[in-house]
């Protein structure tokens, strides 16, 4: 404690300003409990919500595996045998493309897996062994069949680039578990479609933007910029920091009671510590060979492994993008859908299953929520392009996302599309509902995590969102 002659009362606003330290500060939950910014816990649940959260959290962190471009639900987790009967039949409703073909059944065999009997296609031999951990939502729907607005909606709850991303909201609401690491990290080997706005803090304080990490080269000093001084050894830099600290203390001595100056001094020291801590956290070469093999050597596999390391060390929200060297939305299989999915699912299956197994083995799956999905699904009917094998087009009125771990029911298939996989018809889950549910699992009431900006309170789910209670464990 600083030895100050007296302590001045601090307004809530001032307190917010002063506590905006650390990567994402220690989060509203920790600092603002007294100020009641998160609102009061529900009556009777306050004991179960020790951190001033709205509910007892079921998950402490999130790993969001994003399949850029939109995976085909009817080829992965939503079998539609009726497509066989209607093969070649052109759907009556208007669709966005002119060159639409008829319904086309999936060439992949589906079977129930695990004790629960969660159904998936043959493309997921490894995930099949994790079937009882999966909570497959087959009744997702979103607002538009275009990548850009679809991506923005899935990430920020709005089709335009004017709102904070979910990771930023979570960072704002919960902060980081480890002050030497950022709360929100984004892993991608290149820029996905839309790019940085998908992890933008927007009007939230800058500390809540996702720290984007280019995983093209997994060497740790390539991953994290400015991690080390280009020439000075650590001991030399320590000497610099010692002098700097003395000078900053002299400066502070003439300016007592300035929490902001103290925060700067603290941040400098944290940065120095972080150089070694981050170097360790981001370094997957420290993982045993067996795990490297389990996750696979694909970029996506390596990213999943890194995501686990980061979460294990207290990163709150890790967003992992499935991209490839030559394609910033590889799941967008307008042509040659079957071959495309065969290849994509191979890596996705291996890495995702390895991640779930690894988390479980470490006891982390219970409080880590893993989300798997894209910005929408793909049409149950074909898209035909000249001289090319048929593909599937964008499809937003019914698709699949699955969750695992962190407080969701494993071994569950929830909701349904119609018999042809065209529309979500049973227990429909909109993007806003998914967001509300994810926040709920983290102990946050989506209607009460707000930020006052431009004359009103904003929230991730705007005026929408409904927690999907049926899937909570």
């Amino acid at each position: 404690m600083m030895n100050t002659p007296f302590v001045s009362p601090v307004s809530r606003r001032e307190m917010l300003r002063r506590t905006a330290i650390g990567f994402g500060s220690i989060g509203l939950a920790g600092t603002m409990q007294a100020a009641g910014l998160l609102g009061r816990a529900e009556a009777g649940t306050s004991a179960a919500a020790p951190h001033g959260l709205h509910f007892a959290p079921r998950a402490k962190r999130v790993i969001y595996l994003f399949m850029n471009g939109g995976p085909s639900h009817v080829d992965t987790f939503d079998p539609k045998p009726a497509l066989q009967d209607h093969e070649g039949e052109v759907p009556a409703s208007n669709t966005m493309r002119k060159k639409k073909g008829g319904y086309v059944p999936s060439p992949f065999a589906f079977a129930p897996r695990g004790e629960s009997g969660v159904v998936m296609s043959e493309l997921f031999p490894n995930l099949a062994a994790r079937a009882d951990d999966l909570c497959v939502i087959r009744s997702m729907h979103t607002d538009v069949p275009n990548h850009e607005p679809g991506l923005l909606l899935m990430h920020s709850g709005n089709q335009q680039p004017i709102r904070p991303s979910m990771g930023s909201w979570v960072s704002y609401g919960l902060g980081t578990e480890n002050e030497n690491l950022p709360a929100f990290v984004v892993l991608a080997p290149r820029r996905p479609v839309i790019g940085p706005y998908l992890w933008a803090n927007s009007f939230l304080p800058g500390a809540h933007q996702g720290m984007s990490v280019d995983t093209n080269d997994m060497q740790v000093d390539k991953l994290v910029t400015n991690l080390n001084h280009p020439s000075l050894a650590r001991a030399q830099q320590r000497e610099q920091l010692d002098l700097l600290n003395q000078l900053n203390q002299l400066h502070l001595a003439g300016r007592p009671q300035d929490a902001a100056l103290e925060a700067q001094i603290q941040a400098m020291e944290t940065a120095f510590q972080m150089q070694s801590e981050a170097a360790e956290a981001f370094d997957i070469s420290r993982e045993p060979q067996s795990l490297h093999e389990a996750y696979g050597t694909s970029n996506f596999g390596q990213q999943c492994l890194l995501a686990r390391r980061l979460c294990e060390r207290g990163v709150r929200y890790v967003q992992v993008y499935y991209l490839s060297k030559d394609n910033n939305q590889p799941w967008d299989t307008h042509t040659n859908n079957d071959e495309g999915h065969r290849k994509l699912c191979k890596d996705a299956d291996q890495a995702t299953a390895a991640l779930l197994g690894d988390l479980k083995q470490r006891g982390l799956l219970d409080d880590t929520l893993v989300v798997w999905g894209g910005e929408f699904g793909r049409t149950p009917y074909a898209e035909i392009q000249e001289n090319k094998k048929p593909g599937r087009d964008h499809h937003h009125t019914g698709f699949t996302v699955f969750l695992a771990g962190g407080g969701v029911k494993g071994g569950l298939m929830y909701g349904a599309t119609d018999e042809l996989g065209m529309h979500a018809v049973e227990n429909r889950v909109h993007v806003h509902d998914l967001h509300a549910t994810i926040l709920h699992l983290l102990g946050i009431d989506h209607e009460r995590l707000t930020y006052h900006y431009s004359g009103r309170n904003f929230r991730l789910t705007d005026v929408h969102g409904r927690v999907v209670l049926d899937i909570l464990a």
Partner: protein
Amino acid sequence: MAQRRTIGALRLPLLAVAALFLLVTFVARGEELTKERGEFFEKHIRPVLVEHCYECHSTQSEKVKAKLLLDSRESVLKGGESGPAIVPGDPDASLVVQALRFENFEMPPKGKLPAETIAKFEQWVKEGAADPREGSGVPAIAAVPTIDFAAARQQWWSLKPLQFHLPPAVSDESWPRQPLDRFVLQRLDATGLRPAAPADRRTWLRRVSLDLIGLPPTPAEAASFEADEAPDAAERVVDRLLASPHYGERVARMWLDLARYAEDQAHIVGKDESLLYPNAYLYRDWLINALNSDLPYDRFVQMQLAADLLEGDESPNVAALGFIGLGPKYYSRRSLQVMLDEWEDRVDVVGRGLLGLTVACARCHDHKFDPIGTEDYYALAGVFASTTMFNRPLSAETEKADAEQKDNKEVENGKKAAGEAKDPKQAMHVVRDGSPMDLNIFIRGSVENKGPTVPRHFLRVLCQGEPQPFASGSGRRELAEAITDPENPLTARVMVNRLWGQYFGRPLAASASNFGMSGEKPTHPELLDYLTLRFLENDWSLKALTRQMVLSATYGQGSGNTSQVSAFTDPENRLLGHFQRRRLTVEQWRDSILAASGRLDESLGGKSIDPQQVSEGRRTIYSRASRLELNKLLAMFDYPDPNVHADRRVETTTPLQKMFVLNSPFMVEQASALAQRLSADVPDSAYAAKYQRVDLAYRLLYGRPATDQEISLGLRFLSQGNGDRIQQYAHVLLAANELLYVD
């Protein structure tokens, strides 16, 4: 004459709608209710309504949605916000049926009901929608409150006319240096507080230099000011700074934030270069020049909204149109929904940026706090719907060449309008009038749900009497004139308040872009009005206003809360009992570093730069501003997201910032340059020379000599350890808090 057109087909006069409604009601009432039909209702319709609809649409609902009730015959026919819920006899035109079919609405929200159920509703409506329920008439739901604009003008501080207040008498007549000081001291007097002692001369000089030109004073300027004992020494400093071409660079920064200035779009698909604006800098240069020449603020605003309409296409001021022209374009602009979102951006940047009103809140419903109706929103949005963005050719040659080369088919197809440049590199992205059009109100912001058409006009609450529809073209010129009308109490107040925030760290009304009822009221309303009237008297001169502010005793106070009393009674310093210590903006900070290292390139204007480049010496305001990917250095140091208007910068302090300070190539390069400068300016390496180097470093970086203790710490560091100690030392000084803060 320009043609008017409307979006959508709905131009039924209100009276006709009302007549139709009466007719419908009459028909329904007159319907013979046979027993059979009553049974059909009870069996197939009522249970569904009860189970799936009443939760949100009955008199028992906790919260009635869309003002729609479905629990009585009358209320079904009356309908809610979107109109009658059913049209007896016509299932396809009945909103309830449409909603069940998931056409325009999707009801119930939990999932589509079985096809058989929907078919029953269709049958029911088709057969006349017999409804045996005896309603108690339409239950009372609070009607849309009618806004009392006149009362708002009389009651709400920011909408009231400006009022002159005589600068008050104060306890210490010797303290004020400007009339504004009296308003400040009066408040302190009333609370029993005393102003802080004045800052010392060096501190004041560094403060005022960083505030007015964004650069620290040179050691020579500091020495000369310290030696200048003339009573007008401070005034001469301020006049020098206001005359400096760097003044415009500093003030333009504030404007760029609120104008959400950027040189590209967040949605760029593939290698599409049409959304890059390589000459956007011309708008930034226009701002800098306009501010340097002290263009009166009303003209400054008018040019940015309507230079083309006020001065013609050949005016050099058309670059100012970047204010609207460089705004965000969203993906899929052919969709009406997307354009509605874009127009919201324009309404927002004008509403919050110029008027301090959150007009955009009224897009989906009347403003919940302020006297702004949805009707007002669409009246303004129509101006921007009537305005198009385009690539104006930079030179007559380009225009001519393009006109000759142009594929006439493109022009015919409307892909490229005449007079538009082909290559964005040969053009600036600004606006011009398109076809004038009035918009419909879109009920609850929904593109499916059209209300009546609204003529374009200014905000009702700022008009005396009925607003005059804008008659000339898009209406931009009339809008610009209405905004800058001296009778409009907001525009000048908002700008004076912003400028106060620039120099005092906190605007008088803290929510600088929200002067509405959800914003914060000014701490010193009389002072704000006083300054605003002076501002208007001085023909909207920002420089004259600035001069009063920075030459005030209030501005000249020492920083930090040195009084135990005020620390308790005014911890946020709302009463201005001392100067608010501030962190530098990323621009001030990086420019200070460059100034100290000797790498600063003072050239004005021109193309954008990457501020992280180690060799880049141009000022930070010239950084390329991107919506797609904001420069990492800028983003890290709290530069606002240029996708939206920013009224202030939220400050964050993070270890990532410090890692940049400690390890980035840019900082290493600056440390090296500063070390070289220190060695070159003081060539001898004897002890005395080292001493002088330390001292020179302090003068260059912090505008003051080093203390004995700092010198001995420095000398000890320089004489120990390995490597290039002077560079390591320079790096430490660059990383220090003293460089990052201004007292």
